[in-house]
């Protein structure tokens, strides 16, 4: 087991290295472009060349990569072109904001999807199942920007209960989080609920559930003790991977509601060609992604006795 975890961690590191290499090449191969972005489009060819020399851009690619990697390992990602401060100063607070948004979203979405999925899967084909399935399909069919529009129309303009933007300019306000959370939950719960339903429905048709019923166990025990233990393995993995999805999904929502989060930052940085910021944000994103994947894999191995004790 420990060896398995070590292997996964190793793979995680390799993935991050490979991705960082690809990113670096992609973004910094055009050194003149970098200089232009840093010094501005009106700078002269000469000043750019001097800057490039000074900052080591004329060194071989491998050396530059190594230097960057070394710096990144200690948290120095360079300075943001746009904000003119070290990248970290802008990125970490934004990451924290997104974490808050993510936390509350999951706190609502996970219990909701699991319960709905289990209820639907327990009685496959029933009216409840149909209702939950169709609702799930319908909500995942509405893209986040569209549901953001709809929900804003209802809650901001019609009912006037919630504010239209979430910039938190006067300090933290939970009210401002509500709309972004609603949009995220609405979009994502359908998928997780349907995965849970599929897993539950499959477990309910297995022979060992039949054995449990024909042993005379009360229905409640059949579900809680026999079915759930097997049915929840797949949704666990799905939920872990949703953290990965969140990083993408949150971009649209943060952009729409002007929430100062990580996703909006990445978007801004890309649109403004803020190279160092992009590199740093991408690395963080990959770290989170690979980290959750690793946790999902390890967790799946742990939860599945067939693999754990083989």
């Amino acid at each position, binding site marked *: 087991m420990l060896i398995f975890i070590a292997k996964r961690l190793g793979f995680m590191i390799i993935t991050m290295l490979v991705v960082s290499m690809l990113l670096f090449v992609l973004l910094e191969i055009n050194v003149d472009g970098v200089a232009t972005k840093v010094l501005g489009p009106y700078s002269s060819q000469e000043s750019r060349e001097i800057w490039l020399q000074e900052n080591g851009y004329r060194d071989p690619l491998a050396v530059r990569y190594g230097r960057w990697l070394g710096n990144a390992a200690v948290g120095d990602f360079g300075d943001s072109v746009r904000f003119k401060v070290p990248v970290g100063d802008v990125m970490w607070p934004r990451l924290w904001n997104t974490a808050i948004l993510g936390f509350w979203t999951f706190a609502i979405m996970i219990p909701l999807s699991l319960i709905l999925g289990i209820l639907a899967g327990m009685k496959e084909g029933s009216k409840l199942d149909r209702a939950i399935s169709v609702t799930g399909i319908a909500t995942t069919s509405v893209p986040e920007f569209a549901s953001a529009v709809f929900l804003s129309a209802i809650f901001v303009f019609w009912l006037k209960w919630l504010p239209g933007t979430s910039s938190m300019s006067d300090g933290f306000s939970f009210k401002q989080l509500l709309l972004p959370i609603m949009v995220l939950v609405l979009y994502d719960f359908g998928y997780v609920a349907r995965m849970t339903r599929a897993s539950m429905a499959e477990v309910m048709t297995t022979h*060992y559930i039949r054995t449990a019923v024909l042993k*005379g*166990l*009360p229905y409640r025990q059949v579900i809680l003790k026999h079915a759930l233990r097997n049915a929840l393995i797949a949704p666990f993995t799905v939920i872990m991977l949703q953290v990965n999805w969140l990083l993408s999904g949150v971009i649209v929502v943060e952009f729409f509601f002007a929430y100062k989060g990580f996703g909006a930052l990445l978007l801004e940085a890309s649109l403004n060609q803020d190279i160092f910021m992009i590199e740093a944000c991408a690395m963080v994103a990959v770290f989170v992604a690979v980290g959750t994947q690793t946790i999902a894999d390890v967790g799946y191995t742990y939860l599945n006795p067939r693999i754990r004790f083989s």
Partner: protein
Amino acid sequence: MQFDENAPVLEIKDLNLSYWTRAGEIPAVIDFSLTIDKGESIGLVGESGCGKSTVAMAIMQYMGGNGTIKSGSIKFKGVELNTLAPDELRRLRGAEISMIYQEPFAALNPSLTLGTQLKEVPIIHEGITDREAHDRAVKVLGDVRLPDPERVMAAYPHQISGGQQQRVVIAMGLLSNPSLLLLDEPTTALDVTVEAGITKLIADIAKQYGTSQVYISHNLGLILEVCDRVFVMYSGEVVEEGTIKSLFTWPKHPYTHGLFGCIPLPTADKNAAPLKPIRGQLPLPHERPTGCNFGPRCDFFADGRCNSRDIAMTQVTGSAADHRVRCERWTELDFAAEISHDEQKPPISIGDTVLEVDGMQKYYEVHDRSIAAIIAGQSVKLVKANEALDFDAREGETVAIVGESGCGKSTFAKVLMGLETATDGEVRYGGTNIGEVPVRERTPKQIGSLQMVFQNPSDTLNPSHTIGGQIGRVIKKFGVESDKVKIRERVLELLDLVKLPRDFYIRRPRQLSGGQKQRVGIARAFAGNPAMVIADEPVSALDVSVAAAVTELLTDIQREHKTTLLFISHDLSVVRYLADRIVVMYLGQIMERGTTDEIFDPPYHPYTEALLSAVPIADPEVTKREIVLEGNLPSVMNPPKGCPFTTRCQHKIGRICDEERPAVQMASNGHAIACHIPLDELRQAEPVIAVPKAEERVHVTQ
């Protein structure tokens, strides 16, 4: 709910069961009646679709969403099960009526320890404490003869073998002392020697616990060993019922008689007394004929009498026990007189040697990538799938390779077919050593001359292609024909050869039955006029009557084309019927080889002895010596240093068996046994299977 302890344990009267499908209501079981007393074991036997499993589900009142009990009554100790509330039913299940299933691994929850699953039963039903439940479970695990019960309690299902899993399932069923045990094909998924152990266990348990049993199977031989009475079902109806002795000795219904004719009993012989397949096909559930369901296939069918109205069960007169038949004409039929000897077929003439296997060896490398193994320098392990194989096959001969799972027969087939190459030794076929020629390097002629028939009819054909297309492709590939018209001609000829209608050419596999698909598989194998065909368990997945037809087809084709047949099987009855010579394999090595008679008579290798004893034989006058193997199959990666059979051998002499590989002893020219026990001692063994001579029999079988 008040039980009447004086009433029969189970009393079913006029039961009618139906399923609701898109096509409407389909009757699954019709007019079913049965009574079981305390301690009685009754067998329900029939082929697929006869409704036997449906009856078991109906007894449990668990027919699923689309099944209903249309009419009739099921009484358990006097209580009508249909009238019970769900909670009363729940208390009945597992405590009074328990069920044992066909696939033990699927029946156990993979995420809970076996101990948890076992203890639940008495805790729920009797309210005892966890400690008490634990102790009781350990005791019952001992009763089902599982070694080391405490370890099993803590284990997960995947950590024990198939046979052990089934014992756990049986233990689970017995924990609350049920009065009735339902067993649905409990040994079908297990190896033959393991099956023998379980079957014996089931028979003994019935006596020890006093439970009544309903034993469902398609295998008449197993029913003979376990049950007191038997019910034969065909297409939803019971066609005959009686005691074992009465029904097996004097079957009265043409279907029962036909079934016995399909089974390769020891008295059958592929030339002198071949199998007599039942013609025709099982009717689809919604296309049952009026009157007798078996009518269209019956040799004694009388138009006007057999198809005019529903036929009821009538008592067979002159029988001491309850022997009843559902037949219009049973009083007029005398099967003994019907036996004709025109069905004798000419023996196949054996020619020269075509295949020589000389010391063939196939090892697989398994890489263990864990750090511990690399440090120990043992990261590459060898799986010795085939070791020191030595035998030959001649033109027109049928050589059977017999063994259970893990014996290496599939690996051997793969090497022959070129899907693998031998690690050492030679396999000479048609002059070349094909052991080292993978299939991609063989000429089309070579490939066409050595083909295979596969085991699983549902997988043997590609579901997305037409029958004609698939056979045609083979013809083209082997270079037999290249012109489109000629290819089509040849395909149609092949369809004729396997007795399939020509318009199957455009059909897809989905539209064919299992037996028909297997025939196409045979047609495909013979497309290139092969000199040798490997048949890998070609009939084990088929119903008895269908299997008989396919077996006869194979021998007829073989007779006509003088093909050498390498027949791989675990079923010694079929092997005795078909094979001229037999090779017995265990854990990759040959234990014994010789002609069929030499194998079936002493001297025996201990493994052969056990295998012979394990084969169920549906002839009540044949006696068998009982040999039950203890111990486990060793892992292929860690085979014993000496004789591979040492961990289970009932005649193990001592340490020499563990340490040294036995030398091959020649009991006669061509009969080899690999054992440390000296030949003279082996020769003194009693025959395992004793077939009485025809004159001594109570009734004539063939």
